[in-house]
């Protein structure tokens, strides 16, 4: 590179620095002016640079979002007393006039549908998990199960938006975007925030997903999650067009760079230098992303561990494996979505499919991170946007039932990243309808995730339309009880 340009590149970074007025977060900013932060992955420890608010426990987050809302009653929250209550009405004293969705508010009765699945105690702590999730059960000493999550929304779109952005309506940045804004990227060839999605086999036609779930809201759009796709190019527009090979691509990029340098000489706009850099980064991503997405270098034992679907691109299992590879390369926030958990009817059959999809790969991811010594520094979260009702929606039989949306309590679990393993937190009533002890609000969970990655949810703010916005709005408490 022209040494004159090299020098200007430095000025350019200063220019970036000056641009903080339009919102590059402190740490992200620092990584830009810190040459170390753009070295090759593994060369540096970005967390050691002291860029965070709090001493971080985790370097990254892998969030396994179960879209559609899994039934806590059939997987994680056993209610043995319900066995004797089959088809009895849910007592009014339990329901307490709680609002219903438009789907069951017209229902004449609320007959109790006990889970048909068997629960057993697992691990040293005796964590109770149903037969639907044998692999996850085998990891129970590594996971922290929260039985008392609760949320405010009662329908999918607002509830998912709330979970991912802290607000029910569209427009706010997603959790991953906040992390990208706060911490920047730890890999110069990959984005800080990546999103992946897969379709469930239990219910193939299911709740849709939306760009906004990994969107940057009012944060600068560089912080939006980059969607890794299960079809076509792993990242949009990544592949060279047909007939263009690497030699000629490189050749033409050099011409672009030369002409851009010439423009820079004339206009002196540091933005042109950034443009030159972005073309180089694009070129590197064209190598790094396929390399990362190509699982052929994994040994057969890996696929055995993640299960048979892990060889099929776009499945949840393959995405879990991809998540581990992204984690290894320093991506900060890896957001998976698995669709198909919305079991309004035919739950027993559908949920089996969903659990088959996610049980082994989720457990494998945790075990894999553990065996690589990465679990301590990676916070893994598994869960959906709300829970499901004890009463059946639609026809109830001995072997079949459906469940409606239930925001008042549901289960999620976390693993690694400084949370306590083998812990079961919170208690719900006999009907899994109300929280009896230790509630955890969505904002609390968000605050805790932020805390573990070294960000104070009250201090990571962005001024927009005159207000200092944050992920947790004006709420949220870090759940220290869950942390090591």
């Amino acid at each position, binding site marked *: 590179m022209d040494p004159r340009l090299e020098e200007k590149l430095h000025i350019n970074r200063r220019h970036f620095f000056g641009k903080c007025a339009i919102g590059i977060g402190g740490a992200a900013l620092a990584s830009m002016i810190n040459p170390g932060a753009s070295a090759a992955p593994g060369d540096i420890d970005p967390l050691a640079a002291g860029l965070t608010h709090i001493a971080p426990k985790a370097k990254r987050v892998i969030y396994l979002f179960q879209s559609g809302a899994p039934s806590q009653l059939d997987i994680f929250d056993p209610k043995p007393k319900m066995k004797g209550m089959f088809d009895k009405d849910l007592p009014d004293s339990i329901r307490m006039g709680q609002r219903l969705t438009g789907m069951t508010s017209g229902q004449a009765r609320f007959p109790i549908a006990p889970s048909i699945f068997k629960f057993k105690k697992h691990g040293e702590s005796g964590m109770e998990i149903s037969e639907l999730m044998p692999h996850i059960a085998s990891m129970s000493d590594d996971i922290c199960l929260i039985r008392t999550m609760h949320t405010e929304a009662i329908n999918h779109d607002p509830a998912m938006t709330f979970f991912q952005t802290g607000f029910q309506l569209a427009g706010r940045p997603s959790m991953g975007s906040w992390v990208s804004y706060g911490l920047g990227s730890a890999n110069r060839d990959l984005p800080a925030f990546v999103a992946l999605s897969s379709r469930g086999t239990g219910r193939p036609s299911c709740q849709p997903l939306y760009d906004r779930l990994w969107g940057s809201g009012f944060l600068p759009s560089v912080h939006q999650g980059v969607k890794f796709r299960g079809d076509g190019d792993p990242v949009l527009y990544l592949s*060279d067009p047909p007939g263009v090979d690497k030699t000629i691509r490189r050749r033409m990029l050099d011409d672009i760079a030369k002409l851009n340098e010439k423009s820079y000489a004339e206009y002196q706009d540091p933005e042109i230098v950034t443009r030159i850099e972005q073309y180089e980064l694009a070129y590197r991503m064209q190598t790094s992303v396929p390399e990362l997405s190509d699982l052929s270098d994994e040994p057969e034992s890996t696929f055995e561990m993640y299960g048979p679907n892990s060889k099929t691109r776009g499945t949840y299992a393959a995405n879990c494996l991809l998540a581990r590879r992204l984690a290894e390369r320093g991506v900060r926030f890896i957001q998976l979505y698995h669709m198909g958990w919305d079991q309004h009817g035919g739950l027993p059959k559908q949920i089996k499919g969903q659990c088959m999809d996610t049980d082994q790969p989720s457990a494998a991811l945790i075990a894999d991170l553990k065996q690589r010594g990465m679990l301590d520094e990676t916070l893994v979260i598994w869960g959906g946007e709300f829970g499901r009702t004890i009463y059946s929606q639609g026809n109830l039989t001995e072997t079949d039932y459906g469940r409606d949306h239930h925001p008042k309590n549901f289960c999620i679990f976390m693993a690694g990243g400084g949370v306590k393993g083998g812990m079961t937190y919170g208690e719900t009533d006999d009907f899994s309808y109300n929280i009896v002890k230790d509630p955890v609000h969505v904002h609390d969970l968000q605050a805790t995730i932020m805390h573990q990655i070294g960000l104070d949810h009250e201090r990571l703010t962005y001024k927009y339309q005159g207000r200092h916005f944050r992920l947790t709005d004006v709420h949220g408490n870090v759940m220290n009880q869950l942390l090591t």
Partner: protein
Amino acid sequence: MKIFNTPRTLLFVAIGLCLSMATSLTPAMAEEPLDYNRDIRPIISDKCFACHGPDDKTRKKELRFNLEEGFLAKTSNGKAVIDPGNPGASEFFHRITTEDLDDRMPPAESPLQLTDDDIALIKRWIAEGAQWQGHWAFIPPTKPALPKVSDSTWANNEIDYFVLSKLEKENLHPNKRAPKNTLIRRLSLDLTGLPPNPAEVDAFLADTSDSAYETLVDRLLASPHYGERMAFPWLDAARYSDTNGYQRDTKRTMYPWRDWVINAFNSNMPYDQFTIEQLAGDLLPGSTLSQKIATGFNRNHRINGEGGIIPEEYAVEYVVDRVSTTSTTFMGLTMACARCHTHKFDPITQKEFFQFYSFFNNVPENGKGNERGNDKPFIQVPSPEDDKAKAALQTKIDTLKLSILGPDERLDTLQLAWEEEIRNTFATLKWDIITPASVYAEHGTQLEILDDNSIFASGENPNQQVYSVNFEAPDTIRSFKLEILLDDRLPQRGPGRSPNGNIVLSDVEITRTSANGKTEELKLTHALADFVQDLNRYHVKRAIDKNQKSGWATGSHERRENREAIFVLDESTPIKPGDQITVQLKHLSDITQHTLGRFRLSHASSGDIAKWSTPDLDEWHYLGPIPDEKTSNNKLISKVYAPETEFDTTKKYGIDQVSWTKRGDWKDGSLAQFKSNVKGIHYLRRTINLDIPSTVSFSLGSNDSIKFWIDGEALLEKDVGRGAQKDQEKVTVFLNKGKHTILMKIANYGAGSGFYFALKNDAGQSILALMDQLEKPADQRDEKTVQQLRNVYRARDPQWAKQYETIKPLEEEMDKLNKKIVTTMIMEEMDKPRETYLLTRGEYDKPDKSERLLPGVPSSLGAMDETLPKNRLGLAKWLVSSEHPLTARVRVNHYWQQYFGKGLVQTSEDFGTQGMPPTHPRLLDWLAVHFVESDWDVKAMQKLIVMSATYQQSSIIDDKHLEVDPENILLARAPRLRLQAEMIRDQALTVSGLLNDTIGGPSVKPYQPDKMWSALTFQNMDEFDTNFYRQDTGDKVYRRGLYTFWKRTILPPRMQIFDAAGREACSMRNDATNTPMQAMVLLNDPTFIEAARRLAERMINEGGDTSANRIRYGYKLALAYDPDLERQQVLLCGLSDYQSHFNRNQEEAQQFINVGESTPDSTIPQSELAAYTMLASVMLNLDEAITRE
């Protein structure tokens, strides 16, 4: 990381830098006194208002610093808050500087701390006398005098005086005027969004007259593409989209509104009119279709149709969105902050928010939106051809209808006899009111016998209930009449006791105790009611079927009227005088509490009514799904499967071994979904029972294909892929007396499946309800009655059925015509305004009913003129009154942003106290006042800006710029602006000659990577769903970006990658980023490869014979100027390398030039075309190509 010592300081350093930059250009340098609004208020608003601002609910210590009184006040211990001129004696200053951490403000735990610079400025401001000012933006602008400048020769117009005077103060000089090539490209892109073509460039270069530039400006302002360019940012503000934006994100059509905006700009509609028509066009006297279309501005918000939502919740969100969008777009205010509590920073109380909200709260809409196209209210926007075709068809239909439904000698004669027969039958029914001997109800319910012998229920209303009425038969009894009566004491006047007034009578049971003491239940054989809620589960016959689950439902929740039913005993067991009779009225169905409120019984000795009963249906038998992946979609419906030929409830079919099951949960007249997504077959079977021969019509719908049989005869077979809805198909058939079997087959092609079924037409009409009309002499009947009786009678005539069928194709044609006419959503007022209350914490279910709020505007912005109506029209007129402090400022600022990348107020969406102060306040005010004085002439304002010398400067940056003003706040140069997302593609299409520059019309779907939608969406195939992207073909692919189909939940990827607004909410600006994704789009997206190839063809075919000439021509096409030798050298050298590469790799060359829909020019050798395509791709990727200099 030596700069930062501790993690904690890091963010503050960043914030501090921002502030120091923002303040680096204050008069602190120019040594003027500090200005409260510019220098002090931003600090205090940001750091102090949250606790000491407008919101009296959260205010601490009763200290408020948003008003001057707050500073002049004394603290509780008598100290002066501010002692002007004396920082040391000011408690305010003491508290922000004290070392005592308990007293120090802001409190240590607040993330918003004052910087040393802040404190120094406050100190200086107090020392200078602490002059307070109201917030600048709430004070109406006045026109300032032009500032003095030392070099007035530079100025072209007023704008330049304001800019230059600032530059001179900072010792900066404006850049030279940009070269003409740069100017024509800049102007063309800024005013039309499209680049100039070489002929236009040459003409401009050749025009050496003084007026050349102005001529060009005038030409561009007159271009029809000017309206398109101006529309785009307006669409961002108005959150325009082609989909609804929640969950399923179904389609809507708002493009008539989008086209209205384009036309408004092109016809230079004054901004006041532009405002009034969009906010209140429907309320203008004699409003035109165009003015109604304009009101779509406030219907562009997202609409939620998700299955389980609570409609009231979203009804509130829509209104809040209107308030938010209207206040931001027109006033640059963040009013929505005051939804949950009084605004923390700006003088808008929560009550004022809801008064403003009240303007927009009278739309006749549902919170739960329609997922099949536009949500009400909407309006058809027919083209003149549509109108003509409809009128012609209507005439045909009217003529035919008259012949079928009008007088007919044969039928009318038969009808007379029929009427006579009915009258005779019912005349034999002489009713005597029963006087009960005793009445009894269970579970603490009291029954009281009233004077008219009716019975009234009160007390407990348990879920299930049985009433008993005992009496001694005074006479022979064959029939009972049950009258159900309204009563003011009942919920909603009844007649039932359930909260909605409806009744479900599960069974009527008659027991007799004869004189000999024998007790027996008597069999009821017939039942007739004047109204039944449906012909299936709730038919009146279900009250005598001995099945407690079913019953007669009276539909009283929708039709609040008295009702009656007749129950007839078996002929062989009449009641004899003296028998002790008990009538039990049972309410034992699952529909709880739906009990009688007030009723009366009568008896009669005859009861020959069988002939007059209405058809009834039993419940569905359902079998499915039978998966069939192998048979192709359209064959599924005709292939014969076993259940078509046999009905055996014990047999099992398909891999899942399904068998016939009863389904009582599917309601006629409602869409039913199968819980199955597999490709395959579903069967539905039931019977229909008629007591008399009748013509029966069925309305059917299906997802996907449908076949329909009655008694084994196929009456309909349709192969179609679609979502189910009502009235997709109609079958009309004449049926004889007795039971008939209906069989329906639905073939599902995959994804969602379901059906619709309802009985239509007057066969279901009860004769009992017609008695009043039948008893009227023929010459006293009104037209409606005549027609109704005719319809009811003729439905029973077998010949007429065939005649009636002939209308069907015409009606279907009319349906098609109507469906073809596009609709657009509009604003409308309800006759009776919805009542507005303050919503506590902004929550939809917490209205504060203590005070009803009427429409009003925030008092801090100036009152509405008394003569203005208190509705949206008044509001719009208030906005554009010349005294309004914000409207004109916000608008000219938004225009300014379009040309300079940022507004004079950089936070163009927030003019409140938390927004940034204007960089050139006097210029802003001058422009605002000038705009109003020009009668809001929009084109004149654009011209004024682009005619300024400020605008015409070169964009070259020098070291001094970078040092003194890197952000270009002072405008000593023209900004280099990255092109907006849509312009980048529009430009590539233009320079390659691909552009289809049609204006307006339905949105189009250009190239997009595969499966972007389908990977994330529901898999339904409904025509309104946006689950599968079906790219358009032909020249639709090459329309301007303005017309790209905008799916809100999954944005057009090119748009999103180049920073387009998401359109989920109002957006007033979008900052340009610079990312690798952008490089990949320009390098790899087929759009740009195809454009490059077409540009290459133009270079070769039109650019002359030498490579150098062709390169120069290409550059001129793409960048509007002639490249210098150095550039030519780079490109020539590149071309030669590309050429030899593709010579060696012919196959690759062929692949490369075949990208895109259009075919490559076969007269050019493939490798040559590929090499030039690569060259053209280089040009389209250059920083200067996506930058407007």
